[in-house]
C-alpha cells in the first residue's frame, strides 16, 4: 500500500472505519489497527519508535548478520514468564466510557448530575484520564509530544528550536496500519509460531487458536501493530481486511479514505533476497528493498511467478500496480522506518509541507530560493520547513540523498504543472526543475495523473483473492472447509477456563 501524505488531512475516517468493523469488542477497545499520528509527535503507543525501550525489529551486528532485538531463541523462552520489553496498557490508554445512567437516576440535588468516566477494564470510576485516542492530535510544537519525537534526535539544537518557533510550528499526519512486512519481527518473536504470512498475498495473520498469550509479538513488532487482547488472552492485529479483499473489495481504511491518499497494488518480490536485503547497512536499506521488487513485465519474472503458483490475475495486477509505479518506477514512495529491518510493505510519499514563510514588518514574506535557480513560492529543499534529516530518519534510515531525490522530483512536478496552468514560470526554470528532479515531462504528467486525478480502479488494483476458489483448485473442498477465515469460528462466550 502507498500513502500519499500530501493528501492526508488527518480526519481519522480510516481509523473509525477500521474500529467499527474489527475492534469494537471487549478487550480491543484500546486497539487501533489503523491510527493516524501527528508528526512530529510521540505516536501511539507513546514512543513506539524508541527501540531502546521496546526492543522491536532487527538489529544488525558488526559482521552484517541480523538478529531480533528482543531476544534470542533461549532468551525468548527464558523471558516467557515476564517480558521485560512489553508495553502496558498505560503506554496506550485505559479505555473508558461514561456513566450516562447517572444523568437519569441521580437524586434531586442542587447541582446538575454528571456522567463520570468509567474504566472499561475495571468498571470503576476514573478520576484522571491521562491519555486517549489521538491524545496528541495536531500538537505539533508541543513540549510534551512533538519535542519528544525520537526522530528529532539527529537534529541540531537550533533546528529543533526552530520547529517550535511561533509561525514555524509544523506538523503532518502519518496514517499507520500493519506493514505486513517481508521480514516481520512479530512472526519471528512468537514462541508458539502462531503468527504467519500468507504465501499468496503476503498478509500477516495471528492464528487465534495457536496464540498462547506469550505476548512476544507485541515487543517484537517495531511498529507496535500487534495488540494484546487483555480479555481473551490472544494477540490481534490488522488483517488487511482479507475477508473484503477476498471478495474484491478494498480494506475498510482504504475505502473510507476521504483524501483518497491510499493506493493498493501488487508487488512481486524475490523471497530469497529477504535476509540479504534486511542485512545491508542503514544507508543502503531503501535501495536494497527497491531492488528486491521485481519488474512484472520481465518474462523471466513472470515465468518464475507462475512456477510459484501466482495466478495470471495477480500478475496482471502487478503490471498495473500503482504501488509499483510509486515505489519502483518513479521512486517517490519510501518505506516507514526501514531501519527496523522488517522490510515493511507500506510506502509513503513524503509530504511537501507548506512553504516557509514569516511575517516581516507586518507582511507575510515567502522565502524563495534563488540560488537553485528555482522560482520562489514553492517549497525548496534547503529551506524546507521540516528538516530533511527528520524525514530521512522516518523514511530512509537516515539516508538524506534518498529523501532529497524524492523531494526534487515532487518539486519538479509542482513547478511543471504550475507553469502549465498558471504560466508564470519561464521554460528555463521548468527545465531546471525537471533536470534537478531527474525526471521528464511524461513522467511528471503520469505522477500528476496518479496523484491528483486517479480513479478508484487506478488506486485499487488487486484481483479478488478468491481464496475459497483457490483452495478448490488444489484441494478437496470438503476437507478444507472452514480453514480460511478469521480466527474464531465458535461463538465466544465468557471465558470458561
Amino acid at each position, binding site marked *: 500500500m502507498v500513502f500519499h501524505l500530501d493528501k492526508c488531512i488527518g480526519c481519522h475516517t480510516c481509523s473509525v472505519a477500521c474500529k467499527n468493523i474489527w475492534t469494537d469488542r471487549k478487550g480491543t477497545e484500546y486497539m487501533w489497527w489503523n491510527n493516524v499520528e501527528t508528526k512530529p509527535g510521540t505516536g501511539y503507543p507513546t514512543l513506539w519508535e524508541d527501540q531502546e525501550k521496546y526492543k522491536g525489529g532487527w538489529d544488525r551486528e558488526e559482521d552484517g548478520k541480523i538478529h*531480533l532485538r528482543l531476544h534470542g*531463541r*533461549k532468551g*525468548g*523462552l527464558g523471558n*516467557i*514468564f*515476564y*517480558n521485560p520489553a*512489553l*508495553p*502496558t*496498557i498505560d503506554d496506550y490508554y485505559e479505555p473508558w466510557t461514561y456513566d450516562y445512567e447517572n444523568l437519569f437516576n441521580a437524586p434531586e440535588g442542587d447541582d446538575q448530575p454528571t456522567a463520570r468516566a468509567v474504566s472499561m*477494564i*475495571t*468498571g*470503576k470510576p476514573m478520576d484522571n484520564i491521562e491519555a486517549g485516542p489521538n491524545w496528541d492530535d495536531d500538537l505539533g510544537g508541543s513540549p510534551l509530544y512533538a519535542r519528544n519525537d525520537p526522530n528529532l534526535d539527529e537534529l541540531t539544537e537550533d533546528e529543533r528550536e526552530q520547529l517550535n518557533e511561533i509561525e514555524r510550528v509544523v506538523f503532518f499526519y502519518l496514517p499507520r496500519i500493519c506493514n505486513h512486512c517481508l*521480514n*516481520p519481527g512479530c*512472526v*519471528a518473536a512468537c*514462541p*508458539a*509460531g502462531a*503468527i*504467519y*504470512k*500468507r*504465501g*499468496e498475498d503476503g498478509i500477516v495473520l495471528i492464528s*487465534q*487458536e*495457536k*496464540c*498462547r*498469550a*506469550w*505476548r512476544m509479538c*507485541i515487543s517484537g513488532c517495531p511498529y507496535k501493530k500487534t495488540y*494484546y487482547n*487483555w*480479555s*481473551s*488472552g*490472544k494477540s490481534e492485529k490488522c488483517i488487511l481486511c482479507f475477508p473484503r479483499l477476498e471478495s474484491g473489495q478494498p480494506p475498510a481504511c482504504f475505502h473510507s479514505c476521504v483524501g483518497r491518499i491510499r493506493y493498493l497494488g501488487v508487488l512481486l518480490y524475490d523471497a530469497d533476497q*529477504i535476509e540479504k536485503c534486511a542485512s545491508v547497512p542503514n544507508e543502503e536499506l531503501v535501495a536494497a528493498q527497491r531492488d528486491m521488487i521485481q519488474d512484472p513485465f520481465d518474462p523471466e519474472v513472470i515465468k518464475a511467478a507462475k512456477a510459484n*503458483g501466482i495466478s495470471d490475475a495477480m500478475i496482471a495486477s502487478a503490471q498495473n500496480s500503482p504501488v509499483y509505479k510509486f515505489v519502483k518506477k518513479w521512486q517517490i514512495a519510501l518505506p516507514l522506518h526501514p531501519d527496523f529491518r522488517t522490510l515493511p510493505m507500506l510506502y509513503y510519499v513524503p509530504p511537501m509541507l507548506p512553504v516557509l514563510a514569516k511575517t516581516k514588518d507586518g507582511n507575510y514574506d515567502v522565502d524563495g530560493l534563488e540560488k537553485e535557480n528555482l522560482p520562489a513560492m514553492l517549497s525548496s529543499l534547503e529551506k524546507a520547513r521540516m528538516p530533511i534529516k527528520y524525514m530521512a530518519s522516518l523514511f530512509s534510515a537516515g539516508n538524506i540523498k534518498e529523501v532529497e531525490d524524492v523531494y526534487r522530483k515532487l518539486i519538479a512536478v509542482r513547478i511543471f504543472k504550475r507553469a502549465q496552468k498558471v504560466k508564470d514560470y519561464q521554460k528555463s526554470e521548468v527545465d531546471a526543475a525537471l533536470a534537478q528532479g531527474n525526471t521528464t515531462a511524461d513522467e511528471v504528467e503520469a505522477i500528476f495523473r496518479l496523484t491528483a486525478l486517479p480513479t478508484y480502479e487506478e488506486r485499487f488494483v488487486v484481483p479478488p483473492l478468491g*481464496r475459497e476458489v*483457490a*483452495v478448490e*483448485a*488444489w*484441494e478437496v473442498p470438503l476437507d478444507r472447509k472452514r480453514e*480460511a477465515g478469521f*480466527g*474464531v469460528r*465458535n461463538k465466544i462466550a465468557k*471465558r*470458561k*477456563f
Partner: protein
Amino acid sequence: MFDNALFIGFPYMAIAIAIAVTIYRFFFDPYSVSSQSSQFLENRKLFFGSVPWHYGVIIILLGHLTALLFPGAWGLFTANQTRLYIIEIIGLALALMATIGLIFLLYRRMSNARAQAVTSELDWILLIVLFLQVGLGFWVAYYYRWGSDWYLHTAVPWLVSLLKFQPDITYVTALPFWVKFHFLNGFVIALLLPFTRLVHLLVYPLSYLWREHQVVIWNKARH
C-alpha cells in the same frame, strides 16, 4: 477402605479426567488454550511474583519428576551426605522462592483492580490450591527433613505401583497427615489442570528453539 479411595481411586480418577479433558480441549476448543497473561494490565508486581514462582516451581517439579523416573540414580546421588545437604538446601531455597512468588501473585490479584478484572473464580481456586501445595511442600521439607531421600521409599513406589496398575498403598498410608495432604493435593492440581489456565504448562513452546524464524503458509501444498 477410605485410604483405598484416597490413594487409589482419587489419583486414577484425577488423572483419567485430566487426560480426557485435556485431549477434548486441545481438539475441540484450542482457542481456549492460553496462558491468559495479565502482564499487559499490571507489570511491576508481576515481575516479583511470576519470575520467582515459575523458576522455583519448575525446577522443583523437575526434581520430583527426575526422582520418580530415575529412583536408582537419585538414590545414589543422595546417598552421600554432602550431596544430600546440597539437594535439601537447594530444594528448600527454591520452595521458599516459589512460595514468596506466589504470595506476590496472590497479593497482586487481590490488590490490583485491573488484574481482578481478568481473574475468574477458577483462577482463584487454582491460585489457592497451588499456594497450599507449595506451602505444604515447604512445611514437609522443613519438618520431615531429608524428603529428597525418603521420597524414594514412600511416594515413588506408590506412584510406580499406580503407573503399573498394581496399586499398593502400604508405602503411604502410615505417613503423617501433612505429607499425605501434599500428595493428594498434587492430584487435585492434576485434576484442575485441564479445566483452568494451567494447561499453558503443556504448551511451553520448546519448538521455538529450532523452528524457522519466518512462517509462511500457502494454500497450495508446495514441494
